[in-house]
């Protein structure tokens, strides 16, 4: 098992290396002078030269890449071209918010999706099943930004409620923190719930058809036991796979949702830096998100063997 984890971690190195190459060189394709873009057209030649020197833009591209990567490997992501602040501390601070939002959304989605999916699977072709299928398909089809906008509109019109602005950390004021995060988490959670619900339903259907379930039933086990101890546990593998895949959607979704709810998370940082063409921040943040994403996928893979002892990794 440990050998497997280590091998998987080693396999991440070329992927992350690839990500860094893609992100760094794609940003360098942008036509025009980076210094000019940042300082504007009325900047003096001296100021331009100074900026180029400060950020190593006067160096050959390969050298720029290696000096950036060299920094990244020791935890130095460079400085923002706009604010001059260190990139990594900014990323980590904002990631806390995005991470909390993602966890909260995931929990909401499981609370909705797994029970409903199980019920739909057990009562196949019933009215309940049909309703759940329509709800889940709607969940997949409603874009999170549309849901967020309509939700804010409805709350404003019916309860004159508008979501709180700004952010307070969980440990500073847990209640205020939850008040701020609950709406965005509901929006992201319901979108994710659709996909998880569908997968839960179809895997429960699949498992209930199998011989071992018939044997357990024949032995007189209570239906509740059959569902929870046997069917659901076996259905968890595909459910977990879809959850792993949804994490990427979730991380991407935070970019838009943080913008709508003015949450100062990592997604908002990416968007602001893209709009400001702050390359050091864009490349640092995107690399960081990709890193988190592949790590989560690895964790999901490792969870498989915990849930299904038949799966062993060598």
């Amino acid at each position, binding site marked *: 098992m440990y050998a497997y984890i280590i091998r998987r971690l080693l396999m991440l190195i*070329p992927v992350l290396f*690839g990500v860094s190459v893609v*992100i760094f060189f794609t940003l360098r394709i942008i036509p025009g002078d980076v210094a000019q873009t940042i300082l504007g057209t009325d900047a003096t030649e001296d100021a331009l030269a100074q900026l180029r020197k400060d950020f190593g833009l006067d160096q050959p591209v390969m050298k720029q890449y290696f000096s950036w990567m060299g920094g990244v490997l020791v935890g130095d992501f460079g400085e923002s071209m706009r604010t001059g602040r260190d990139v990594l501390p900014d990323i980590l601070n904002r990631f806390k918010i995005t991470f909390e939002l993602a966890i909260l959304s995931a929990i909401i989605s499981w609370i909705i999706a797994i029970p409903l999916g199980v019920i739909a699977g057990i009562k196949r072709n019933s009215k309940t099943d049909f309703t759940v299928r329509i709800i889940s398909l709607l969940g997949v*089809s409603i874009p999170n930004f549309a849901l967020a906008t*309509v939700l804010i509109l409805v709350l404003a019109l019916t309860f004159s409620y508008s979501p709180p602005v700004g952010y307070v950390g969980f440990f500073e004021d847990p209640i205020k923190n939850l008040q701020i995060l609950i709406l965005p988490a509901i929006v992201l959670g319901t979108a994710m719930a659709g996909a998880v619900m569908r997968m839960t339903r179809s895997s429960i259907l699949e498992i209930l058809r199998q011989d071992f379930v018939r044997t357990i039933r024949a032995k007189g086990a209570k239906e509740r036991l059959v569902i929870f101890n046997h069917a659901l546990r076996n259905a968890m593998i595909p459910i977990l796979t879809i959850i792993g895949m949804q994490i990427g959607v979730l991380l991407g979704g935070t970019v838009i949702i943080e913008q709508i709810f003015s949450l100062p998370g990592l997604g908002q940082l990416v968007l602001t830096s893209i709009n400001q063409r702050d390359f050091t921040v864009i490349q640092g943040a995107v690399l960081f*998100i990709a890193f988190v994403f592949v790590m989560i996928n690895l964790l999901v893979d490792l969870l498989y063997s915990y849930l299904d002892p038949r799966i062993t990794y060598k």
Partner: protein
Amino acid sequence: MKDFTQRLIEDKVGLIGFIGIFIVVLLAIFAPLIAPYEPDEMFTNHVMEGPSSQFLFGTDEFGRDIFSRIVYGAQVSLQVGLIAVSIGAIGGLIFGLISGYFQGKLDQVIMRIMDVFFAFPDILLALTIVAVLGPSLTNTMIAIGIVFMPVFTRLVRSAVMTVKENEYITNAQAIGVRPSMIIIKHIIPNIMAPFIVQITLALSGAILTEAALSFLGLGVQPPDPSWGMMLNDARAYMEFGPWTILFPAAAIVFTIFCFNLLGDSLRDLLDPKLKQ
């Protein structure tokens, strides 16, 4: 094929999706005939008016007719959907065929590159590409196409590897049929089922991504009407005119929902395991 069409008609869910998509396609093709006004025509005396017989879905903050903008917006959505998915699907087909049929080192290289692209969440990759190319309709299509390529590559590759094991392929190879002929005549027709399902699902994904990018101001640029952009523009005024939000949102949800209905039903129909 006849059997397939028959079954699609019998499966009501898929049929509803198909009819819905057909309506959106008609709206897009006949937009100049259906829309009562030009999408960017401003009626300065009718700013932020609610739905009426003159303006079916009301007007926006510039006095533009929302119904006409939604009808023309269908053109943008479908255009982005079709072209972006074509880029992703054709690219994915080529790479997937090469990877799956020839395997070996080339396969390794292609798949590792795709792994790199898989390490980005979709919308983030699209955002970065648009950031580099600059926001515009064309660049939105290119960005979404690139984002979708790895999914198609993986799908085609695994389908090819399954089909390749069949005896008729080995026989064709044994009698010396050229690889290009084997791929075109025997492999491609046999991987079409999952490929078509993926195209339907990717279409809904592409339309959604375009709406999201335009919502963020990084997709389609004014004056082209995009549903996502309309939604974002309306946010500032929504309490004074809920219709400015509700109709574009409904258009996005309706279109994506119909594509998903069709995709779902196609997947069930084409999956031999679920046939009984």
